[in-house]
């Protein structure tokens, strides 16, 4: 019998058993699609975190104003971080290359007839560099602007959106912060959600201007510090602690009234948890794969009786073992390849939909596709061919009597 005839017989058999064929295919499709989507999600999340780490660098420490404790009792009304502390760190902490203060609070913003309420941050020109934010339009303010306490503002990327204005067209326009007019000199690029300061919905003004014209006080919400290359973050933390404890006149044995956060630790935690997330998804995918595989196996084994009789009939009428085997190989291959292709399409489509519609990070991994396809198609092939092979070994009459 020619290969063309064999293929024809196999295809006719697939069509004659459409329900069984499509259920088998479904098992493969579900397994493959689940693995592709889940692994794409897990890998995507991991890559997103890795990308943030790479982007932000891991040389940055954050110092937050905390509470001071006197004999275990929190005293609420103590200033714990001030512009003086910032200046002391710049002056006296040799292990820090950059120090970025943040003097901030929510303020009324007025532009034309629009009223908004946003966080306004007084900071220094090194903010974009340390926090890896790009300036999209205009410029960041300069040390000169700081020295002269100019009323200039750089906007986070959401502000132009809220004002329904193109970022470029806002440069040179005036916006009122607490009724004080500021000239818009720059707009930041969108950063999105991430660990660390999220600049998108904030406005940035020179520290000195913020202290004297907007907030009227010098309490910092926090500051960030970049550690000198080649020095460990821990050494940097010790340096900050030494300077601030001296500034705050904290005696030995007393607790710090500030907190130093090592962002890398958070990143590593995040990394660890996305890894767990990825493993979780991968195991869900693995379960789907297994269930799909069991489904395939089930269908194939349930149909063994019918198919064994069919093999008996075909052999009684002159089919050789090889004829039978080839028919079943072609059947299983067709179903397997078709199911695999549809599964890849469905899984890829789902991953695509998650990126496009829900804006999740996905990354389709070739390894996962290979694994899923090999497994599902392998199960399909094995359980499609193995019982047939056994039945083909029988005398026709035994196959015909099978029940």
């Amino acid at each position: 019998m020619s290969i063309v005839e064999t293929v024809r017989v196999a295809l006719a058999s697939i069509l004659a058993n459409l329900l069984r064929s499509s259920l088998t295919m479904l098992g493969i499709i579900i397994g493959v699609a689940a693995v592709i989507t889940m692994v794409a999600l897990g890998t995507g999340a991991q890559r997103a975190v890795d990308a943030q780490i790479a982007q932000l660098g891991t040389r940055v420490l954050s110092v937050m104003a905390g509470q001071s404790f006197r004999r275990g009792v929190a005293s609420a009304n103590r200033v714990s971080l001030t512009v003086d502390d910032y200046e002391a760190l710049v002056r006296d902490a040799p292990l820090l290359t950059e120090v970025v203060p943040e003097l901030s609070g929510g303020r009324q913003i007025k532009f034309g007839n629009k009223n908004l309420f946003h966080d306004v941050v007084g900071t220094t020109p090194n903010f974009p560099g340390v926090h890896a934010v790009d300036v999209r339009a205009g410029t960041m303010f300069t040390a000169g602007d700081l020295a002269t306490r100019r009323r200039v503002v750089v906007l986070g990327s959401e502000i132009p959106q809220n004002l329904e204005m193109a970022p470029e067209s806002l440069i040179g326009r005036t916006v009122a912060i607490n009724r004080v007019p500021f000239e818009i000199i720059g707009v930041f690029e969108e950063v999105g959600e991430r660990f660390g300061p999220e600049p998108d919905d904030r406005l940035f003004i020179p520290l000195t201007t913020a202290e004297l014209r907007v907030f009227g006080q010098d309490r910092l919400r926090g500051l960030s510090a970049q550690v000198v290359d080649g020095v460990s973050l821990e050494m940097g933390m010790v340096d900050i602690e030494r300077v601030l404890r001296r500034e705050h006149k904290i005696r030995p044995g007393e607790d710090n009234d500030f907190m130093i956060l090592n962002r890398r630790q958070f990143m590593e935690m995040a990394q660890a948890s996305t890894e767990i997330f990825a493993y979780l998804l991968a195991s869900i995918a693995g379960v789907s794969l297994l269930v799909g595989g069991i489904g395939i196996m089930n269908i194939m084994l349930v149909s063994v009786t019918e198919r064994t009789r069919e093999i008996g009939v075909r052999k009684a009428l002159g089919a050789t073992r090889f004829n039978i085997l080839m028919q079943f190989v072609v059947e299983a291959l067709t179903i397997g390849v078709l199911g695999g292709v549809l599964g890849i399409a469905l899984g890829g489509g789902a991953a695509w939909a998650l990126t496009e519609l829900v804006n999740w990070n996905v990354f389709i991994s070739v390894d996962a596709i290979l694994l899923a396809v090999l497994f599902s198609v392998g199960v399909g092939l094995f359980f499609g061919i193995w019982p047939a092979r056994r039945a083909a070994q029988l005398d026709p009459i035994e196959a015909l009597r099978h029940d």
Partner: protein
Amino acid sequence: MAESAATSDAQPVIQVKGLHKHYRMGAETIRALNGVDCTIRENEYVAVMGPSGSGKSTLMNIIGCLDQPSAGEYWLSGENVSTLGDGALARVRNRRIGFVFQTFNLLPRANALHNVEVPLLYGGIGRRGRRIRAREALERVGLGDRMDHRPNELSGGQRQRVAVARALVNEPSILLADEPTGNLDSRTGQDIMDLFGTLHQAGQTIILVTHEPEVARRAGRHVHLMDGVVTEDYLTQEPDA
């Protein structure tokens, strides 16, 4: 004891010697065939008879190369069947033997036409040739108007006729039929038997199993089985009535 009836000078097609078929059922051994000797020559028309369970189907299956004997020899046209490999056996089943089963054994998901085409498929006949010959065979058994029906859309008698058409389609030299009229009314039964008669006159070797004297009467030779042995084997008065 059985007396040998085959005294013609025609070539022996089938020769079985000391044929045994045993089934182990737990501690018990069922001797479905218990030493059968028989020679069948070209163009003989043999009716195998005997009570239910006497081993008729078992014998037919071995002669049809569908089953292997537990002991004994089977020579088909001077060839020892037990020495044949898978490919040679498949060729024998395909070209030499047409088998009508007691239980039809049609492919349930294929229509009548496709069922009848199967032997031609494994015989290497092209698509168009298969179609033509399968149609002819079905028309010969009076099923020209049921070609696209599946077995479950046919009556028992119609299924049996599909099975007969399938057995005949590849023009086998030996036609084996296990109760071919068992499920037919006397009218269609007679049509089938007339067909067998015509085939026999054209040189076909036929072995059939039957319980009906009407059917057996047409055969030129009767072989009686009882408990797995041949008890009687004789030529009839009026072969090919």
